[in-house]
């Protein structure tokens, strides 16, 4: 054991300087999310506001090609009615099916359609913006940041799964008007505190009062950033609420089961532990009833 402790201490002392080098990009601040934790649920109003931000700001460049309009009315989502989801779908023009003449025309979207992508292909996007804006369907899970030791161990117990949304929120209000002294950006790039490498091709998308909220939520960059991030968490994990609800049921079941099995085990082994010398293997039908 002494040897084990020595080798552990040695490894830790050698690693300390290496750990210090990792703090280049600041860790995004942790927000309070309604969907965090074992009982987490999406805030319907927040998801609806987030969808509004998406439709008025993000969708010019970013698609949601995995998200179907019908899911807007699914339980555990933004809580639209079928009629509302149908109306939202109808506001989009999507590529239709070939008609009798073989012509393909655009038609209004239906519930079964997905959000149309803004560019026909990556080349078209690059020609326009000099970069390919990523599809946002699973972006909240496709981004994150290094939690580092020992925080990642704590995350197992605190169930912290919101690295992605925290990062997106921080990114959206992490723009600085000019880079710090000594930093030059490539042309067409912007300085963002939280973006790895700091030079981001996306212009600052949000400004105060850019999107009109009708529910009294503050119309600030910070609020917009949180709402769109929450909305993108939902697009990435549309069944999060069902998952956590089923999880709690499974948990209660397993804890009760484990408890019952534990006491059954105690009972079955009672004789072995009390009178180990008496036992012989025998069929279960012959076990004495205590």
């Amino acid at each position, binding site marked *: 054991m002494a040897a*084990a402790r020595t*080798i552990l201490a040695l490894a830790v002392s050698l690693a300390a300087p290496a750990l210090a080098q990792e703090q280049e990009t600041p860790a995004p601040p942790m927000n309070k999310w309604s969907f965090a934790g074992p009982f987490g649920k999406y805030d319907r109003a927040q998801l609806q506001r987030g969808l509004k931000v998406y439709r008025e700001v993000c969708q010019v460049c970013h698609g949601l090609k995995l998200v179907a309009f019908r899911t807007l009315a699914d339980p555990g989502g933004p809580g639209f009615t079928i009629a509302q989801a149908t109306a939202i779908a109808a506001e989009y023009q999507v590529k239709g099916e070939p008609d009798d003449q073989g012509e393909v025309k655009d038609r209004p979207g239906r519930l079964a359609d997905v959000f149309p992508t803004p560019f026909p292909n990556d080349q078209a996007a690059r020609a326009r913006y000099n970069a390919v804006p990523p599809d946002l369907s699973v972006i909240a899970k496709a981004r994150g940041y290094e939690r580092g030791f020992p925080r990642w161990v704590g995350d197992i117990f605190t169930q912290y799964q919101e690295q992605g949304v925290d990062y997106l929120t921080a990114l959206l209000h992490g723009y600085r008007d000019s880079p710090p002294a000594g930093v030059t950006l490539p042309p067409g790039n912007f300085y963002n505190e939280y973006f790895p490498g700091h030079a981001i091709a996306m212009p600052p998308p949000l400004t105060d009062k850019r999107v009109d909220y009708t529910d009294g939520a503050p119309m600030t960059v910070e609020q917009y950033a949180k709402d769109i991030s929450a909305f993108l968490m939902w697009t990435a994990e549309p069944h999060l609420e069902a998952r956590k609800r089923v999880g709690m049921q499974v948990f209660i079941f397993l804890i009760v089961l484990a408890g019952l099995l534990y006491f059954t085990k105690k009972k079955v082994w009672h004789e072995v532990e009390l009178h*180990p010398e008496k036992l012989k293997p025998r069929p279960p039908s012959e076990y004495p009833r205590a």
Partner: protein
Amino acid sequence: MSGHPTYQPQSAFMRWMERRLPIGGLIYSSFVVYPTPRNLNYWWTFGGILAFMLGVQIVTGVVLAMHYTPQVDFAFDSVERIMRDVNYGWLLRYLHATGASMFFLAAYIHMFRGMYYGSYKDPREVLWILGVILLLLMIITGFMGYVLPWGQMSFWAATVITNLFSAIPLVGEPIVTWLWGGYAVGNPTLNRFYSLHYLLPFVIVGVVVLHIWALHVAGQNNPTGVEPKSEEDTVAFTPYATIKDSFLLAVFCILFAWFVFYIPNFLLAPDNYIPANPAVTPTHIVPEWYYLPFYAILRAIPNKLFGVMALGASILILAFLPWLDTSKVRSARYRPLYRQFFWVFVIVCVGLGWLGGKPPEGNYVLIARIFTVYYFAFFLVILPVLGKVERTKPLPNSISESVLREGKPIGAQAPPPAGAKV
């Protein structure tokens, strides 16, 4: 062990069956009256847990395969469709992805237990080697499964790992092309990985059958490492082992459920939610946590060929463990020196896992090299020498004696308890 009751079919159907295919008798003798050492602790329940996890992986995997599309343009989206549109698809996929981690966790605990109690020694060498083969099959199967979602990590893991074979002199490059089915990781690679990922679990099932067969021939080892000598040393598999295994399996499932339902993405890299893009290399290509120790060994060695050899050797060396360990005493309980080296070995393995996730630079490389040297020295130097020089503690005469005298000095000089057959 002789003398345990034989199977007496209770129903007319089972009597009819027993004269034609004695499956009832096989189950009865293997899983009911099968004698297990009475002193097995909870570390012995991981075999059952592993069998359960294999079942979970196969059942969820078969259903996932019904909805998955093994084609580079659709694979990523088809996994997302499973998550969104298949009934309980999110549950199936998270069970399967997290299940792989749980499977490896249980396998590593199972192996460390075998090493601590010397379970690989005569007459259980073949049992142990079959276990090493199972680990190897699991590693290959898990890797191929990781490629299937066709995210960035999938693609680049496939690229990095298959490229390891290019280190082989002369035939390296043709082998890699053959593995890929082309000149780069592409659709043929995905197709064959899918095919093999479906096939290999059933090969694993076959080897598990052999593993259990070998176990039932040699019998289980136990924490004393002393073979059962009389019926007093054993208890029947059912109900004793069955109930103990069931309890710990339920506890293990609580851990499993915690990950599946509350932190399903904790063990998955965010980069794998980005569709595969051969034109963009991720900043850090990191394998799943269960490969990290081997990955650290690979990177600890500056030469690619020797790195790949060390990677292979780090797994294959396990197969030689029964002969590298020269001590006649099985259990680390009676090997004070071995016990220390064993725990250092555990720390080194965990440490290598931690280093495998770090960029290969600065002191990380230095520590990885020290740990790699220890990893191999443990097998090649420490174990052979220790068997010759270590002064082991006296062994109990029997399992019963050890159980009865728990907490009191035990040893060959202690008289056996009254009534115990020695």
